[in-house]
């Protein structure tokens, strides 16, 4: 059935091919960004600045674990988590806690857990879902601990540092009612929208312009499958609530490589990198991206050792 023609990296694509996925990603992600910003504004209004920090202090040594699982209370996706994290940081939550919440909340959310379990029916659904959640939490915790050793100047982008400073000034000198919060939420929404547009454009180019068949074909070789599937995940920029449905049905890819695809997906991709650059410094983003890639690769290789045949 297979021909002798070598599979090309790309068959090419036109502007029209780019436009449909670009607008679709943008139109479908935008509501989540808006709701994230509005929810953050609402949270800031109903919860006094000190309440969240006090709650975290009460959890003591377990505060990192508390942050890792806090996302399970909300059906959040990656796009909506960032405005909430920015708001938490403005409210005095430490950056390490913010980082843990940001990277673990998409995968512990009920939406992601249910979709992973449903997509992997007949392919070890319980183990896939469990390992996905555990591995992402492990990596998020490591990133949080790594962050705790850094100064905030090395982590935050200039814009978000200025933003936190402005919020502090505003809390001290200006009215902090819901209307002010709402205005700030709108400012933040427009800020994210700009980066979401750039991220969606990149995601649309990569998801349309690169030959998936080639990626999935390479992913069938056990020695490189994990790395290839991670690359595919970063390039395709899929939502963590739907990525399992894309990867699960593809035959021939080792289970561990599919798991690597699922682990890296909520942590980092092209769209998220652009979006996160509104909050984090580029050098910090680069460092944690390496941490994510290394962590996922090592964990997947470990799983591949135990389940080589699947």
């Amino acid at each position, binding site marked *: *059935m*297979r021909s002798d*023609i070598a599979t090309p990296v*790309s*068959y*090419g*694509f*036109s502007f*029209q091919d780019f*436009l*449909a996925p*670009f*607008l*679709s990603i*943008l*139109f*479908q992600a*935008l*509501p989540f960004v*808006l*709701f994230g910003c*509005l929810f953050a504004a609402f949270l800031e209004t109903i919860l006094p600045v000190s309440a969240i920090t006090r709650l975290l202090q009460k959890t003591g040594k377990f505060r990192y674990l508390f942050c890792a699982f806090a996302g399970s209370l909300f059906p959040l996706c990656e796009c909506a988590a960032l405005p909430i994290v920015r708001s938490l940081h403005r409210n005095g939550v430490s950056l390490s806690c913010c980082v843990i919440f940001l990277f673990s909340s998409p995968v512990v959310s009920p939406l992601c857990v249910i979709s992973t379990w449903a*997509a992997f*029916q007949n392919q070890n659904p319980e183990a896939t879902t469990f390992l996905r959640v555990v591995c992402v939490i492990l990596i998020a915790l490591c990133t949080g601990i790594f962050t705790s050793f850094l100064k905030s100047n090395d982590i935050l982008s200039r814009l978000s540092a*200025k*933003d936190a400073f*402005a*919020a502090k*000034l*505003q809390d001290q000198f*200006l*009215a902090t009612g819901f*209307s002010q919060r*709402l*205005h*700030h939420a*709108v*400012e933040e929404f*427009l*800020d994210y*929208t*700009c980066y979401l*547009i750039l991220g969606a454009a990149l*995601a*649309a180019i990569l998801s*349309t*312009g690169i*030959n*998936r*068949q080639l990626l999935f074909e390479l992913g069938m070789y056990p020695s490189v499958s994990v790395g290839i599937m991670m690359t595919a995940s970063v390039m*395709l920029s*899929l*939502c963590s609530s739907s990525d399992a*449905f*894309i990867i*699960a*049905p*593809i*035959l*021939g890819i080792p289970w561990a490589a599919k798991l690597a695809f699922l682990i890296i997906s909520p942590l980092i991709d092209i769209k998220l990198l652009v979006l996160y650059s509104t909050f984090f410094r580029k050098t910090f983003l680069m460092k944690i991206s390496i941490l994510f890639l290394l962590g996922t690769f090592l964990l997947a290789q470990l799983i591949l050792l135990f389940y080589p045949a699947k």
Partner: protein
Amino acid sequence: MKNLTAVKAHFFLDCVLLLSWGIMLSTLSKEGPLSAILHPTYKYWSFFCGVILLLLAFLLPLLNNPCILHTSSFPITQRVVIFLPILLALSFRSSEFSRAALLNRGLSTHPNFSMAPHDNCTQLYQDMEGFWNITPLDAWLLSKSETDRAEFSNASVSLIGQIMLPNASSQLRHPIIFRIWVNCCFADATPIGISISEADSYKLESVQELSWVHLKGKIHFHEEPPHVPELRILDLQTITPPTQKYLFR
């Protein structure tokens, strides 16, 4: 004084942006070519997002004065970037992929690369002439169950889809009838196709590449795993594109 004027101008511009996005999301997500590429579940979210943006565009100037601390950090270039998709969305006419993009997205007759989701078939029904109305996705799902294969092998089927013809530059050996399956958004749009029997290739000579057809034929499944479905053509008619071009999960 100069700063305050700039802040007020920015604030006005933000309200215009919210208004434009609000109008666009609430109208274009309801009907039209852009609405056709949005997932039926999520298009309501886009619609409500548009309504909320419209409300915010009117509410914000009434609620408070612009905050000098935040507005000043948001440059004009970013506002231009936010405005661009509005122009693109308004000029968006056709959502159909080119041959190259379809191949990039994984259209193939090779079973290992064809992605069939683990969902159940849609409710299949027979028309007055006894043809089963199926989609290419249904055919793939039928091929997964031994009982279904036994029941539907050599059954008369009727399906609507686009035709892709083989050529030298791709791995396609046979013509394919396909539909695009969307799980969440167009980033994951995947063409799912069924091969048309090689012996029937000549019946497609008059059919243009990527044209929409209504095909009636007999389905059978290869004996060896993964039991790839294949079609023999009984009747073929070129049709206008259906209103619902894509199969959404």
